[in-house]
């Protein structure tokens, strides 16, 4: 299945749910969807073109928005579904009913960006090291790390 086939199929079958389809490089397709359409689009694509392999979910902090990129691999390249959620209300539906393997990456998102994943099967808050302070999300741009002073054994000479 070539890129053009996938684009055409997506346009024909899921056109009403997809906001934009970009094709920046060979074997790379970027589809933009609204957050509430995300699960439906993934389920549709899984049915239409057999998209079972979720490579990862990248989160990007864009200031007032978080951008989530769901990278899928297929037999002939890569397809990325992009969605944006507001920083004030960082919520997104879990993909795990459609793709069980997604749970890992969603927990990672919870941990690193503080995005709330609705209906995630294992809703335990993700911990960085035990005793990590709450409401600290390392990958948010406004979070900075204070270096702890190091002890020099034997003292400085």
């Amino acid at each position, binding site marked *: 299945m070539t890129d053009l086939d996938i684009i055409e199929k997506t346009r024909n079958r899921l056109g009403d749910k997809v906001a934009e389809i970009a094709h920046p*490089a060979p*074997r*790379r397709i970027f589809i933009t969807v609204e957050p509430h359409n995300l699960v439906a689009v993934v389920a549709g694509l899984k049915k239409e073109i057999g998209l*079972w*392999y*979720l*490579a*990862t979910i*990248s*989160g*990007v*902090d864009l200031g007032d928005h978080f951008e989530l*990129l769901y*990278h899928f*691999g*297929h*037999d*002939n*390249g*890569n397809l*990325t579904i992009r969605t944006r959620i507001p920083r004030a209300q960082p919520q997104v539906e879990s993909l795990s009913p459609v*793709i*069980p*393997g*997604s*749970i*890992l*990456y969603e*927990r*990672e998102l919870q*941990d*690193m960006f503080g995005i709330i994943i609705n209906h995630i*099967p*294992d809703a*335990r808050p*993700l*911990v*960085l*090291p035990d005793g990590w302070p709450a409401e600290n999300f*390392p*990958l948010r741009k406004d979070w900075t*790390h204070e270096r702890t002073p190091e002890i020099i054994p034997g003292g400085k000479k």
Partner: protein
Amino acid sequence: MKFTIPIGPQHPALKEPISLRMTVEGEVIRDADIRLGYNHRGLEKLAEQKNWIQNLYLTERICGICSHSHATCYVQGVEKLMEIEPPKRGLYIRYLVAELERIHSHLLWLGVAGHEAGFDSFFMYTWRDREVVMDLLEMISGNRVHYAINTIGGVRRDLDDGQAKKILDGLEVLKKRSEFYFKLAASEPTFVARLAGVGYLSKESAMELCAVGPTARASNVPRDVRKDDPHAVYDEVPFEVCTADSCDVLGRAVVRIKELFESFKISEFLVKNLPPGEIAVKAPKRAKPNEVLSRYEAPRGENTHYIKSNGTDKPERLKVRAPTLANYPATVEMLKNGFIADIPLIFAAIDPCICCAERTVALIEARTGEEKIVRFSDLRRLARRRDHPLVSKRNTVWPF
């Protein structure tokens, strides 16, 4: 008699810190819980504070075994962002190192698998031969482990004719040795008995849980980024995707051995057809605002790097997905209802590279399977029973 045993974070079977909590009944595992985070170093945050060249150094140190794969994956992406085209010769050397690294990694894995199964002689023999490929890598790059051969726009070091000849000789030696040892291993009944039927992962669950690399290929899912997404030199190189259909540890070993021979073939092709010319082009300091998704087939499976630039000399976001992380859900699935004795083997079978997986944190808990309390008297019966009906089903043939 049901209790939880902690395996790790410091455990001889795991060379890296990870904590597995196994709920066992006698010798049978009922539930598995993996706790990561012991190796989490916060790499993605660090990457945002370093410039493009410094990040090359950083990505190389994500992992020591597949250091070249992360660096290559990153460099591929950055070259696209900067819109530069590395010269052909540079690319050939880069992917030659990549294939040699795959050979070293698979030999290492075979040795470790032997060690986990208590077959120390096999471990010693494979590691002795691994030194041959380590020498080749040291000759090409000047380093045994972190090769640092990549640079943005090509590679750092050229290859001369003498070196090319040495590589071909070394590959010839390796080929002969590996063939001999693998025949030996295949004829060792205790070893094969330990691998066959252990850690079953069906094709359906492999797909559902998004398994990658040899783990997926051993479950007959022919996924290989080098074929699916033929980047750089891989559209010119003849090779095959190796699969097995036995879905167990034996299958994973077979896939790795077959891949080893594919890698010998690819490396030979790359050395023999090395084009003349430059090895690197000059790279700009900054990259225009853009985004790129870079994929690379590391020895353990697919590496995915998502890189976003914002016009400065530092990346806006560098997202690293290592293959081991993708294989964790599958591991939990495989561990269920196995024996304690098989934990190290099953865990080793995905060739875990915890340091790769843990540039971020993840926590998995297994879905609780059917549980019943077993008394001590039942244990003996359990131990005698053949828990896996698959033991008899050996449709994966050893390649020799």
